[in-house]
């Protein structure tokens, strides 16, 4: 009693007994190694397979007859053995690039490779190919794939598409055999590594016991063999580990990246850009504060491509290293690279374009008299900080902040405040608003978007802690700086709250800004002087 297999060669079904199957498998494998690497190799293989199928049909007069060892021998004799092809290869004009002779004899067991199985496909044959690779029922693979959907969501669809594009379909019978070839189980990998380790040992022994031990050249050759085969073992292990690491890393970054881009609010946190903080601000809205809406979407897509493609390439290389499938699709590779470059160029153009919005700066200064004819001291106070709790602490453009007011985002910033000597003998408050724009007119328009309020109550100057930008205004490096001109002989008192806006006030006592609050200061001929120090100098 003999075991029979059912095989499909060039779309014809054959029953074949075990010995004949193995012989045919090795033969097709040899042909694949021989012709496979040439560009027209697949076509030649398909032609040859079609012919083999035809020869076998002639020999199995009815559909029930089993293909035997002898029939396969006859077919091989007609089609040509490995040696016949090697002879043909001596011809330099032969279209088949050389493969070293040893591998053509086809004695090695067929190694398993990952292919897509077009015969049992539902969509692209990825699952059926996986089933063949892992020697599992396709149904189980499909169920696992389906369950993965609940675990990692739409990413498994993405993974499926990547595999669909990158894993080749098993077209020729040789490839279909490779698809179900020697199992790539851990024990098999271990076995093949052990075999190679043994080979290292053999080579070493041969090297030590070699009669021409001291003949320089042979010795070097043997040494090379030993080194070569040990290196191969190490490399194999490294490649497997590296592949696994790439796949894990690739999936992790992909999940992180896509989550942050699509589902999260911003791509600035999480994944590869984890700065260790969380933000409730919607990135799209946020970007709108300083980029025109159209360019924002374009740059977002460009960033998606720019970062996404390298991650996909990592994944692709990783799976390729693990499953050892072949790919010949230069077009997809070049296309992907092209798209990536395009994204890069787009981003640069958008960036340059946006930078153009900052090219010109302009300012507008308003000077107002602070009434203090009878008073000696002006008290500087700040209005309550209404926005403190609304400000998102994580985001600031320069000195500006984003606050959420009634569900709308508002840009605001601290003004800067300093004190100088007045030349007119009066208290004057100078408010200078500055902004940038693509040209002076545009900058002027941006200046006008700034609102800053203050009020005077008797001898108290009530300053707002923030200047605000009108709704829909873009961030264009807006600044508000105030100068209070104090005439000689008059004093000021700064409230503790002023600490947040005072900026570099020159004073005779050389005191830091932060220490100046809560004290009385008088403008003297030398400059601003602290009152206590005046009294001390007077006392002396």
């Amino acid at each position, binding site marked *: 009693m003999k075991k029979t297999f059912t095989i499909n060669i060039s779309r014809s079904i054959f029953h074949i007994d075990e010995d004949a199957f193995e012989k045919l498998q090795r033969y097709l494998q040899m042909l694949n190694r021989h012709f496979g690497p040439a560009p027209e190799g697949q076509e030649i293989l398909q032609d040859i397979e*079609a012919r083999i199928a035809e020869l076998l049909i002639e020999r199995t007069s009815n559909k029930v007859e089993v293909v035997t060892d002898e029939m396969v021998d006859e077919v091989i004799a007609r089609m040509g053995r490995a040696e016949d092809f090697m002879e043909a290869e001596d*011809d330099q004009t032969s279209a088949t690039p050389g493969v070293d002779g040893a591998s053509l004899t086809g004695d090695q067991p067929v190694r398993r490779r990952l292919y897509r199985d077009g015969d049992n496909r539902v969509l692209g044959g990825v699952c059926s190919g996986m089933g063949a690779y892992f020697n599992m029922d396709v149904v189980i693979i499909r169920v696992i794939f389906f369950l993965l959907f609940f675990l990692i969501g739409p990413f498994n669809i993405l993974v499926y598409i990547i595999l669909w594009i990158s894993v080749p379909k098993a077209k020729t019978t040789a490839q279909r055999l490779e698809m179900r070839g020697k199992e790539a189980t851990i024990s098999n990998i271990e076995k093949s590594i052990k075999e190679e380790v043994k080979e290292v040992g053999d080579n070493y022994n041969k090297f030590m016991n070699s009669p021409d031990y001291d003949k320089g050249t042979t010795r070097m050759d043997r040494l090379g063999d030993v080194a070569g085969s040990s290196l191969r073992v190490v490399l194999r292990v490294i490649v497997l580990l590296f592949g696994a690491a790439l796949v894990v890393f690739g999936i992790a970054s992909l999940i992180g990246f896509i989550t942050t881009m699509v589902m999260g609010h911003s791509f600035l946190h999480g994944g590869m850009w984890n700065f260790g903080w969380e933000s409730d601000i919607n990135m799209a809205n946020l970007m709108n504060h300083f980029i025109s809406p159209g360019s924002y979407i374009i740059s977002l897509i460009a960033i998606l491509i720019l970062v996404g493609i390298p991650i996909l390439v990592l994944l692709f290389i990783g799976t390729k290293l693990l499953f050892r499938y072949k790919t010949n699709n230069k077009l997809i590779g070049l296309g992907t690279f092209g798209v990536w470059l395009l994204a890069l160029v787009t981003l640069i153009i958008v960036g340059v374009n946006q930078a153009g919005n900052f090219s010109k700066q302009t300012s507008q200064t308003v000077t107002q008299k602070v009434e203090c004819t009878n008073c000696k001291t002006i008290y500087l106070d700040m209005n309550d900080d209404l926005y403190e709790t609304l400000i998102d602490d994580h985001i600031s453009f320069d000195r500006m902040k984003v606050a959420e007011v009634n569900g709308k985002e508002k840009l605001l910033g601290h003004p800067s405040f300093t004190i100088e000597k007045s030349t007119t003998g009066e208290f004057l408050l100078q408010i200078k608003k500055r902004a940038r724009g693509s040209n002076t007119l545009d900058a002027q328009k941006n200046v006008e978007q700034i609102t800053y309020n203050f009020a005077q109550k008797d001898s108290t100057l009530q300053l707002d802690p923030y200047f605000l930008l009108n709704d829909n205004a873009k961030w264009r490096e807006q600044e508000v700086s105030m100068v209070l001109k104090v005439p000689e002989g008059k004093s000021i008192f700064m409230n503790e709250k002023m600490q947040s806006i005072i900026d570099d006030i020159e004073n005779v006592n050389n005191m830091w800004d932060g220490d100046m609050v809560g004290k009385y200061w008088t403008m003297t001929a030398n400059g601003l002087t602290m009152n206590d120090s005046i009294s001390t100098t007077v006392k002396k």
Partner: protein
Amino acid sequence: MDLNNTKAQMRKGVLEYCILLVIEGKPLYASNIIEELKNSKMIVVEGTLYPLLTRLKNDGLLAYKWEESTQGPPRKYYELTEEGRFFLNEMGTSWDELVEAVRMIKRNK
């Protein structure tokens, strides 16, 4: 000098010409071509013919069309293209010249 090797080299040199010659008359299926070539001992195994056919096709000398077969898969029927016909003529001329040259040298001995 290896006699067998030299013979094989000579055969290979004219093999493409012979294939074109065989196909010249009418569209032929690979196994018909093989029959002819086997009869004239130009090739020994069929496997070596397929790479040659594919290359001649890719070079634009041959074209093929699919035809259904009563037994087994559809067959590729090869025929000469315009370019192939021109090529065959040119090769024919130079072949005749070669044969003539060899004949003259032999006779003058």
